[in-house]
């Protein structure tokens, strides 16, 4: 196989998995509770630094990562109780308040000087392996595996478990769900907790590939927005397809045209989708349809 093609295939897949993992929490929260959590990027960055600090305290990486996921998940629930619940239902206020929290977290770390090369997380598995004649490190393959496992796991969770079904019911018809005993605030809080925990998972798996840079917080939010806009805001399948399209397109552009054009793909993809399918590739049509 042509080396460039092989590399495009392998790294395209890795890149798609990275995007998927980054966007998963944002998409899940929105799908289940309708809250667009603009603090997603802030929580992602916070998770990176939390794991780093826990390791400084002497915890082994896996324990630190697990604790981080739990802590940030709890923080997500708190975020709902303190910040979102008072303004629930006012879209403008929901967007603005979560956005403010996200920016505050990110800029707090910048102010505190978390900007040097010391801040990095270790890779879970070291070394690399040959795949289609391309050398890939295990960590990147791990990303693919985790992204896949999480996506399947979440699908199973929302379709087969009692809690998952309750959450989905909530997202589809709040009043009916209320009448069968599902409490809206409880469900939304859980969805925020889950989404935040997923942001933390993404952080502890993805950040070891490089250093923890402050701007990766904004980048994570940007990626989450790009993927969900591309795939369709309320569709899990759309999000997977959005990640694949973006991942392969960025990698292919980088490989064949030149690395600096990879960035153009994000913008191009968003502008194209906007122009031809504003509700996303698989988006449930959010146009003005009044249902029966």
């Amino acid at each position, binding site marked *: 196989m042509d080396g460039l093609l092989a590399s495009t295939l392998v790294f395209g897949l890795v890149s798609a998995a990275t995007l998927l993992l980054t966007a998963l929490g944002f998409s899940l929260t929105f799908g289940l509770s309708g809250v667009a959590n603009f603090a997603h990027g802030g929580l992602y960055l916070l998770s990176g630094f939390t794991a780093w600090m826990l390791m400084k305290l002497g915890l082994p990486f896996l324990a630190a990562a697990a604790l981080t996921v739990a802590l940030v998940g709890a923080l997500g629930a708190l975020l709902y109780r303190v910040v979102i619940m008072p303004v629930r239902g006012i879209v403008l206020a929901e967007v603005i308040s979560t956005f403010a929290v996200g920016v505050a977290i990110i800029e707090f770390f910048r102010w505190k000087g978390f900007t040097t090369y010391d801040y990095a997380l270790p890779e879970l598995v070291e070394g690399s392996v040959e795949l289609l004649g391309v050398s890939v490190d295990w960590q990147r393959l791990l990303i693919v595996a985790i992204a896949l496992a999480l996506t399947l796991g979440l699908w199973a969770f929302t379709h087969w478990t009692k809690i998952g079904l309750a959450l989905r019911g909530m997202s589809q018809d709040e009043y009916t769900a209320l009448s069968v005993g599902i409490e809206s605030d409880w469900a939304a809080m859980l969805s925020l907790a889950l989404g935040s925990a997923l942001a933390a998972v993404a952080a502890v798996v993805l950040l070891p590939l490089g250093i923890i840079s402050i701007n990766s917080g904004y980048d994570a939010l940007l990626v989450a927005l790009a993927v969900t806009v591309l795939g369709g805001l309320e569709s899990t399948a759309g999000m997977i397809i959005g990640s694949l399209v973006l991942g392969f397109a960025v990698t292919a552009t980088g490989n064949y045209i030149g690395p600096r054009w990879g960035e153009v793909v994000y913008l191009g993809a968003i502008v194209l989708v906007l122009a031809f399918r504003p509700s996303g590739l698989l988006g449930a049509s959010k146009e*003005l*349809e*009044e*249902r*029966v």
Partner: protein
Amino acid sequence: MSAEPILRAEGLTKAFGKMLAVCDVSLELRPGQALGIIGPNGSGKSTLINLITGFVRPTSGRVFFKGEDVTRVPPHRRVDLGMARSFQMARPFYGLPVFKNVVVPLTSRRARRHLGQEFGDRDEAAVHLLEDVGFERDSAIPTKRAGELPHGYLKRLELARVLALDPDLVILDELFSGMSMSEIAGILPLLERIKAAGKTLVMVEHRLRELFRVVDSVVMLQFGEKIAEGTPEQVMARPDVIEAYLGAEVK
């Protein structure tokens, strides 16, 4: 009465996913006719209205208005052609004063063309329209925020919004629901006047007794299909209609 129908729907079908909300429904309305659409909850009445007014695109089928194929015409253009509707869930422009709710449609192209000469001031025209639908004369209600109105008023405000467009075809989606008997009694003469003015009327209703005082023909839907059509007496005499719709009540 002219022979040319004002509204003709041909084989209208709408599928939401696998569910057929409306299945192969055809209708024909002559100018001045008043049609009632009845059927149990979820029988596709509102979807049918949405298909006729263009708020939902049909999966198949066509809509003709005044002889013109409007199937692909967007809803706001259909308003311009003379088709106006109310919504089942009457939601006003919450933040605006009540009379400004009526000024909004009065600034539309159609209203400016049709009523522009008649009234000098749009605010004044709006207040007149509100009185027509039964808002008390000289009360402070028209200057209140629309979000503060009680439900019965919202329904009438919705009607005023429709009438402000001076439509030839008036489509009312469950106007009576949530209204008190006295409120309905207050509205009936207005509906008579609309008919007398030569306008065509389509009403989706659950309140059959009141509906039959207004309409001269009825279409019955069930599971998205048209199962009966005729004068109110004809339709209500059919055993399958009684079974499907009124079974419990008749027993």
